[in-house]
């Protein structure tokens, strides 16, 4: 879908972080956790590309979606300044989604900072299916542990950390020593994903990572957002926007 949307609200979490709510009934109704949207919300031709953002949550009753964002450059700086009723073009929902297999009984959800943006939607989805979900989030400061209350409301086990000396995966590892997980879902740095891979090898569970790449089209046409993936020994290019943004951790090549 490509819709002319508008800002319902744009809540400032901090100088750098915000949460924008957008009118998008059809997207709210059809999106799956892990999917993203491409958005253009400025006049003129700079920035050039639309910007990709994960869907943080959907609200079917109000016909809205929410995006959690961090200001890192020109495009996100403009996003921060949007006000109620400002116009936004949205293309989406795009990409694949977090696979939640029938046999999964207990999953881990791992993220850092704004990397946790797609995780709320995933947790909601898992809980609806009655899957047990342990959420592990780290951030630089407590206010950047987004959606904490929500995770608790829907009865996820929640571990939040602002300890810079510990990787968030270390909390997960502690759990793994005594609890079996069927799968882990991670969104964050290469380092984080690498550490999940190590734990997968050690403890045996499935791992899925949400990746980012610079995108032009967002729909698979331009072949611009490729990464290298390894499928059973064979390396090939895969488009993050189309085959992803969610990839099995075991297929990732760094």
């Amino acid at each position, binding site marked *: 879908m490509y819709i002319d949307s508008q800002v319902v609200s744009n809540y400032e979490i901090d100088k750098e972080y915000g949460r924008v709510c957008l009118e998008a009934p059809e997207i709210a109704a059809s999106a799956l956790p892990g999917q993203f949207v491409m958005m253009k919300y400025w006049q003129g*031709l700079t920035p*050039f*590309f639309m910007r990709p953002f994960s869907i943080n949550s959907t609200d079917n009753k109000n016909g809205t979606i929410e995006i959690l964002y961090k200001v890192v450059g020109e495009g996100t700086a403009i996003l921060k300044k949007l006000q109620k009723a400002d116009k936004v*073009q949205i293309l989406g929902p795009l990409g694949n989604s977090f696979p939640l297999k029938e046999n999964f009984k207990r999953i881990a959800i791992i993220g850092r900072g704004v990397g946790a943006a797609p995780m709320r939607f995933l947790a909601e989805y898992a809980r609806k299916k009655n899957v047990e979900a342990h959420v592990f989030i780290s951030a630089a400061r407590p206010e950047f542990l987004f959606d904490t209350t929500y995770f608790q409301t829907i009865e996820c086990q929640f571990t939040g950390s602002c300890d810079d000396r510990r990787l968030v995966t270390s909390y997960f590892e502690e759990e793994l020593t005594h609890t079996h997980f069927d799968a882990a879902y991670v969104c964050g740095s290469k380092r984080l994903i690498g550490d999940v891979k190590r734990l997968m090898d050690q403890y045996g569970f499935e791992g899925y990572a949400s990746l980012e790449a*610079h995108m*032009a089209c967002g729909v*698979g046409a331009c072949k611009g957002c*490729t990464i290298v993936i390894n499928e059973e020994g064979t390396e090939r290019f895969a488009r993050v926007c189309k085959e992803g943004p969610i990839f099995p951790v075991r297929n990732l090549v760094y």
Partner: protein
Amino acid sequence: MYKTDLSVQISTLQMKNPVMPASGAYDYFEDNADVFPMCTLGAIMLKSVHRYPRPGNKPPRIAEVTGGMLNSIGIPSIGIEEFLNKGMLEHYKTLNVPVVISISGGSPVDYVEICKMLEGNPFIDAIELNLSCPNVGTGLQLASDEVLLGRTVQSVRTVTSFPLIAKLSPNVTDIRKTAKISEECGADAVTVANTYMGMKIDIQTKKPVLGNIMGGLSGPAIKPITLHMVYQAYSVLNIPIIACGGIMCASDAIEYILAGATAVQVGAGNFVNPMLMKEVIEGIDDYLAKNGCQSLSDIRGIANCRKN
């Protein structure tokens, strides 16, 4: 459907309007934003199919720059043989719009081989020779070498009866020369032009941003340069020109037509606005109607004082 006559003809290729995607910047099936019906388009232009299978270049493959983008996709392709075996062309034909296949190769012989394989194929309506991709091999561009260009067009001409469109490189000293050579060697039209060789350097890592070091610049940044090339080419050619470079709105397309273009291609603009091609078609129609014109020929080339 339209208020005016938007139809154009390029050799035997009949288009109901002058707008088609630029090769490689649009897909028609699952990789499409799906915001308007494909039959809206004047023609279906395919992503270049290479002679042999190619994985494409190593990532990162795109970078944003002021007024546009760099790409070093490098024509990932399953190769013409598998492409034909898979019945891809039949598939495109179901869209009920004339189909132009774009082909690429590393040497003139590659193009000849592909055209031989395509000869008589009932599912295509024209062939565009991508002679100008800056991202294949060591940056050799057939269309930047007058001798190779002429040789390629000429030898392809002898083996194909399809309308032949030579897609020229803007990385040349004088587009009039390469355009004229294409015409003389039998091209039925030229596409002016492809991307400009460019690059971006990350001052933090101190390395080129693109995995392939350099890439092709496209988008509105290049429009003034390509527009001038269309204007120049129009002054020397008797065959139609398809303009391609930086079209972001109907007005850009109209500038190209006023400079002498018969048809236009939209590339990077599709990414920024998935509705763009539809808007361009409607915008041209509105413009003609508002200016009391019946058809595109009323405005084609009229900004061009150099046409003799």
